[in-house]
């Protein structure tokens, strides 16, 4: 099980290397989908099933879908993948940088047990992270109302940005 967690953590770092080397947005969105999936695996392995499900539904299924079809705005005849020379150079540079940082951390490395957080203390009806998130609705009710207000405000920000007033003659988008 700890081998699986190590593989998932490797996938997390390598996936973000693939995104940070800035290929064409099609490939960067694919890399981010892979990173989100692997991150869900890391959370499930640590015992947080509900938070992993939230990540899949809201992040992958909500936000990244919007990014994927916004990538149509970056359409070009020859999209640059991970085999092109500038992207490959950046990827190798980032991997070397991560390896360098890992070498710097050598003295402080701490390999702990991957022990799940629940199941060792007490019996309960709900899993831990579900109980924690439910606090957002009870004690953190005002935070929820504030968050809803911020989301409504963002809607008006987006509408005002895309309205454009009198600037911009192109309206093909």
């Amino acid at each position, binding site marked *: 099980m700890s081998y699986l967690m190590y593989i998932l*953590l490797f996938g*997390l*770092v390598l996936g*973000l290397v693939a*995104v*940070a*080397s*800035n290929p*064409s*947005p099609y490939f*960067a969105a694919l890399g*981010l989908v892979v*990173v989100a999936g692997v*991150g869900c695996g*890391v*959370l499930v392995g640590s*015992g*947080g099933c509900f*938070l992993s499900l*939230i*990540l899949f539904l*809201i*992040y992958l299924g*909500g*936000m*990244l879908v*919007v*990014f994927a079809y*916004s990538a149509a*705005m*970056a359409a070009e005849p020859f999209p640059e993948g991970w085999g092109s020379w500038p992207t490959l150079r950046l990827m190798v540079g980032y991997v070397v*940088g*991560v390896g360098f*940082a*890992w070498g710097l*951390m050598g003295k402080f490395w701490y*390999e702990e047990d991957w022990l799940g*957080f629940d199941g060792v203390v007490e019996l309960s009806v709900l899993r831990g*992270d579900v*109980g*924690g*998130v439910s*606090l*957002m609705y009870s004690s*953190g009710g005002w935070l929820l109302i504030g*968050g809803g207000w*911020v*989301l409504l405000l*963002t*809607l008006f*920000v*987006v509408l005002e*940005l*895309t309205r*454009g007033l009198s*600037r*911009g003659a*192109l*309206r093909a*988008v």
Partner: protein
Amino acid sequence: MTPAHFAFSSAFMLGLAGLAFHRTHFLSALLCLEGLMLSLFIALSLWALQFDTMNSAALPMILLAFSACEAGAGLALLVATTRTHSNSRLQSLSLLQC
């Protein structure tokens, strides 16, 4: 430093480097920003899970809500840029004009 801590810290640093050393497309920089938010979500969730402090499990949810706001604002800026400059390349944002 535990392996998970190193993994999401280096993921955050990589996303930050990808955002800072952007190349051609605006959308690639926005995707690096989303990668930053993803690494922060994983970091906060692992904090709540591994330290057994379930009270802070609501924090990644709030982070996700606000990062959705930020992604929406970033994409609105992308649309506004495409409308005024006819493409979303970063080299066309150089004239200090709208």
